[in-house]
């Protein structure tokens, strides 16, 4: 077992740092329904961490807990070693946690560029008056952040649709724009909610490549949930497996492949 602050080097030569975020005995209930039951795990810097599980296992709820949208009734979330106080969702974003959504949540009335630029909003500080006049600081800031946004747009290969309204884009591209919006905020943790859902094989391959590239190029810590086992096993460094709100496995993909509880949950087990 590694210490929280220790780092290690993976087989393919990447360095995984210390623990960025730690979930401690999280329990989440909706009325009488227990969505998450006493789950603990951690996310290390620079790794790709997957949360998998069958439908209704509580994956999305878990992601919403990490992103601060749901507040668990029990347990605590440690971020950079300190317990995270109860925050409003936008304050979580200001702390450097960005996410994408299962059912794309782009701003349909805006262009791709504007959508990506919204990802920079926490990096911009000019006030209402400065923006009204548009000379000096506001304009300079706008240009600087535009450059950052364009870099990500280039990286994710969506230059050609920069000025297209998002509502006109096909599904796969929308997913990519959403990734760009999350990535451009230079998050310390990037949460991906079923990034491959509803995609065909080719789009899945593209998306996997982008996720690996992002992790490689920017060293971004990524936590993703997904129920396509195959994709997850190839992508991630460590995997948490959930079933009916409980954690039934946690470890490297090869550990998980050989975990009897996981195999039972996925393939079903004969009850006698």
């Amino acid at each position, binding site marked *: 077992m590694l210490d929280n602050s220790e780092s290690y080097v993976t087989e393919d030569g990447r360095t995984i740092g210390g623990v960025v975020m730690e979930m401690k005995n999280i329990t989440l209930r909706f009325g009488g329904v227990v969505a998450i039951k006493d789950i603990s795990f951690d996310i290390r810097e620079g790794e790709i961490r997957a949360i998998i599980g069958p439908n209704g296992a509580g994956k999305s709820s878990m992601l919403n807990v990490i992103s601060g949208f749901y507040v668990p009734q029990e347990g605590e979330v440690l971020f950079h070693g300190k317990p995270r106080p109860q925050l409003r969702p*936008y304050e979580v*974003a200001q702390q450097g946690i960005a996410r994408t959504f299962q059912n794309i949540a782009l*701003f349909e*009335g805006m262009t791709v560029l504007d959508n990506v630029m919204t990802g920079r909003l926490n990096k911009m500080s000019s006030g209402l008056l400065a923006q009204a*006049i548009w000379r000096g600081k506001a304009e300079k800031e706008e240009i600087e952040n535009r450059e950052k946004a364009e870099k990500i747009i280039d990286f994710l290969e969506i230059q050609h649709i920069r000025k297209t309204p998002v509502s006109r884009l096909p599904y796969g591209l929308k997913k990519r724009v959403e990734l760009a919006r999350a990535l451009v905020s230079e998050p310390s943790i990037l949460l991906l909610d079923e990034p491959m859902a509803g995609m065909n094989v080719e789009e899945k391959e593209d998306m996997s490549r982008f996720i690996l590239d992002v992790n490689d190029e920017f060293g971004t810590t990524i936590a993703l949930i997904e129920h396509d086992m195959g994709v997850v096993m190839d992508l991630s460094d460590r995997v948490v497996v959930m079933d009916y709100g409980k954690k039934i496995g946690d470890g490297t993909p090869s550990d998980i492949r050989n975990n009897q509880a996981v195999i039972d949950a996925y393939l079903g087990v004969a009850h006698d």
Partner: protein
Amino acid sequence: MFYREAGDFKTSYTDDNQTFPIKFDRYRYYVVLAIAFGVIPFLINDYWANAFLLPFLIYSIAAIGLNILTGYCGQVSLGTGGFMAVGAYACYKLMTSFPDVNIFFHVIAAGGVTAIVCTAFGLPSLRIKGFYLAVATLAAQFFLVWLFNKVSWFYNYSASGQINAPERFVFGVPVTGANTDAWATYLFCLVFLTISAIIARNLTRGMQGRKWMAIRDMDIAAEIIGVNPMRAKLSAFAVSGFFIGISGALFFAVYLGAVEVGEVFGIQKSFLVLFMIIIGGLGSIFGSFAGAAFLVLLPVVLKLIGVDFLGWPTDIVAHFNLVIVGALIIVFLIAEPHGIAQLWRVAKEKLRLWPFPH
């Protein structure tokens, strides 16, 4: 043919961020400004100033204000009439309390007062949305009109309950009161409209505009990516109130000169401005102009056709006006929710490729 962007390359993000990125648009904008400031003041007469130009300019400011709140930030307000009344009465109190200060600053300050009032009535938007909020803003409408009607301090205890604009000068030229010239009042309002439009454009093309639109398009997602919903919504209410207040002040001081609050700033005014932005185009500064021009011109044109040409009595023409406005709202909502501004964009798109569309 002549409307094209080929060869008009941008080499910096500053160029790309301009209000009118295409050269032709930019030149046309300068030409329009030159005509508005340099030509029309010499041609204007009282009829055109009062029947079309002044109301057009003033309603455009109100429409820009409401468009920021409704078109950009997605918060529907039915309190525009009440907020215009705040601008008018604030301007009146300031004009009579500080007669030595230039009226220009009175109008600006009236905008500021309205911004504060509007923000206060925007507070419920933090809890409720959609038409719940729209209905809640009706509370502002009725309460404010009642207040200005009942509390005599607001109309300086005058017996008639009306407010009358005293004569005020800008550079020695009267812009309010009985002895104004059409060109002076026109230019005075035009200056405000130009400034308002530029400010609104700057705000909406930058990060503030993106925050507003993010709230409009999907408020939960906006919050999760880091938009503070309270600040975004309340700033929209404040900015919107500022413009609406200015327009209310001008409507009272420059255009009408005397105001009875229930008659001038009633619920009908709220709907009128809302219709302007629906027909003109939600979320478009140009649409605010187009909608204001359209709804100011419509009764004038109908009167020309109905009363002067067909010889109908005026009340029938007024009823026709209702029917046409109502039908237009429905048609636009069904066929073109982005209004005249979108029709204009589509036309431009076609022109860009003309005469070789393929």
